[in-house]
């Protein structure tokens, strides 16, 4: 497998009271291979969306990416780019789709215009060729009657159709990597199933790597190749998907699994994690999950590194030292 992305020690900070900076993303590292899907899973405020924005250098001010990390696309470090070279990465090497397509689409241009614009921004083609390519892209993302839809405006489309248009725009320059930030969260379940199927198909046919940002363990199961669970700005557990679901090991991951209502098995009272996720300014020293952790012990006063349970299964918890298989 060829590596398309390598993120190393990514840190994103925001100014806080007293001249300090709080690190909303704090030392995140991961890799992505061609055709692979990595799911970044976590609850609101865990830093998963900021991580994805940082990949394209889209961190909103006054936040900033701190020095000392790297985002490598082949031999380019995205953190060292500015101006035109940076613009060429966005869309061309890394495409992105968001939860709410309506805020990313321009209401006064037709769907065809907006896809063609994406095509022409990155590929040397005529208007005519760009439009043909737009039509082809609409077919590829499964929009019925694509010829008519080219001339439609965003408000004339349903939520599911708009998200397909966003995917078509993201694909217009044939990026190697697609970052999908909660792509189906705003959609109904039957439409969600359609969109996920489109993503699976494109991954298979184009070898596109996908970074899926989600809060929903359900859409990760049976779809992502690997999962990284985030809590309080850090990856706390990472593993191939089957291994993570067979043996969720970090107490936070276990708490997440116990909180999810299920369709099968006996109906039992859910076992929520006590308390709530603290804001970055209130993260404790040592293990950040410690105040909510039912298994916390003395050693948790020191921050654990990602420790191996199995060669590809690691967790940020001292218990890995005793649970290692």
């Amino acid at each position: 497998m060829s590596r398309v992305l390598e993120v190393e020690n990514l840190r994103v900070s925001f100014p806080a009271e007293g001249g300090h900076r709080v690190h909303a993303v704090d030392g995140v590292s991961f890799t992505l291979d061609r055709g692979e899907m990595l799911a970044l899973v976590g609850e609101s405020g865990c830093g998963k969306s900021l991580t994805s924005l940082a990949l394209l250098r889209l961190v909103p001010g006054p936040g900033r990416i701190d020095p000392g990390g790297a985002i490598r696309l082949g031999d380019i470090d995205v953190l060292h780019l500015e101006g035109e070279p940076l613009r060429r990465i966005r869309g061309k090497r890394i495409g992105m789709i968001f939860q709410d397509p309506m805020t990313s689409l321009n209401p006064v241009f037709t769907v065809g215009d907006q896809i063609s614009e994406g095509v022409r921004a990155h590929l040397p083609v005529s208007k005519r060729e760009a439009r043909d390519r737009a039509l082809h892209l609409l077919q590829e993302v499964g929009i019925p009657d694509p010829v008519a839809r080219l001339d439609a405006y965003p408000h004339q489309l349903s939520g599911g159709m708009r998200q397909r248009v966003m995917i078509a725009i993201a694909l217009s320059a044939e990026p190697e990597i697609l970052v999908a930030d909660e792509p189906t969260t705003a959609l109904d379940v039957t439409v969600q199933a359609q969109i996920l199927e489109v993503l699976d198909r494109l991954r298979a046919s184009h070898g596109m790597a996908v970074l899926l940002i989600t809060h929903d363990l359900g859409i990760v199961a049976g779809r992502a190749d690997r999962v990284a669970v985030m809590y309080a700005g850090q990856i706390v557990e990472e593993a191939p998907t089957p291994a993570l679901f067979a043996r969720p090991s970090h107490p936070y991951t276990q708490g997440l699994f116990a909180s999810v209502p299920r369709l099968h098995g006996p109906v039992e009272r859910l076992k929520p994690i006590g308390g709530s996720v603290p804001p970055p300014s209130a993260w404790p020293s040592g293990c950040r999950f410690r105040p909510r952790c039912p298994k916390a012990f003395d050693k948790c006063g020191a921050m654990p590194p990602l420790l191996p349970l199995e060669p590809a299964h690691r967790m940020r918890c001292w218990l890995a030292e005793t649970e290692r298989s």
Partner: protein
Amino acid sequence: MTLLQVRDLVKHYQSGGLFRPSGPPVRAVDGVSFELAPAETLALVGESGCGKSSVGRTILRLQEPTSGTAVFEGVDLFALDRPALRRTRRRMQIIFQDPYSSLNPRMTVGSAVAEGIEIHRLARGAEVGRRVTALLEEVGLDPGYAARYPHEFSGGQRQRIGIARALAVEPAFIVCDEPVSALDVSVQAQVLNLLADLQRDRGLSYLFIAHDLAVVRQLAHRIAVMYLGRIVEQGTADAVLRRPRHPYTVALLSAVPEPDPGRRRTRIVLTGDVPSPSAPPPGCPFHPRCWHPRRDERCSRERPLLRPVGGTSAACHYAEDTPLPEGVGEAGGTSTASIP
């Protein structure tokens, strides 16, 4: 015994507006009937635009119904004048998906919870404060928070405030309109448990409006599935989830993402979108998207009525023969993945 009886509820919205001539009305709710017993939860399930929220709001008369009846504790809700309606609302409350938008940002949590007690003159003087303290404790909030403002709280805490505010007037019935869909999973579990505890302790009835069948399963005694303004299937939660008869219910169930890669499941991916409620298809409203192998021209001509089939009632001409794909409903069997 019946607490609430809804018959042939219809809510149409006139479309069109300032710049457009009025077209056909949007038939948001198009003949919905159900009953609710004390201490019972009926879940109203469906996708966006199916009319489930309009049902809840019309019963409380937050929106006026187009036609139909709703009898609550023996009172015909749609015949009440304003003062009588206000008195009756003490017994019927609602909690929303986004509690923040329903809380006054300039009112402390304590006064927000006390408001209903004062309006309905349920207590006076120091007794109001004592009740507010007890309510905040009951929903799992520190009573010391009473002097704080809504923006100081997380989404889950705000939902608890919304629940305390609804409970303050001692209702018998609460419409829960997507109460946990905006919450993170760990917080969602806390609020679902709280709703279950309150029902047990206070004998509350819930009309639980939601789109997530796995969430619904935690609380519902009965489930009604809505599509394009009508109930297409209704029955006990167990029967609907185990052996659904309407092909739309089956598709919905098959699409629920489950955190269980060990489970083999056939997903039914419906084609197309939900048609516009202002121009519903003739015959069975689901027929243009239906995957039922027996679908035929009768479905595009004749509207199927809700009728008992197996353990549920379903509005499908061929409900007897609705197939159950692998991994859906009772064909699911037991889970193989280990859950800690």
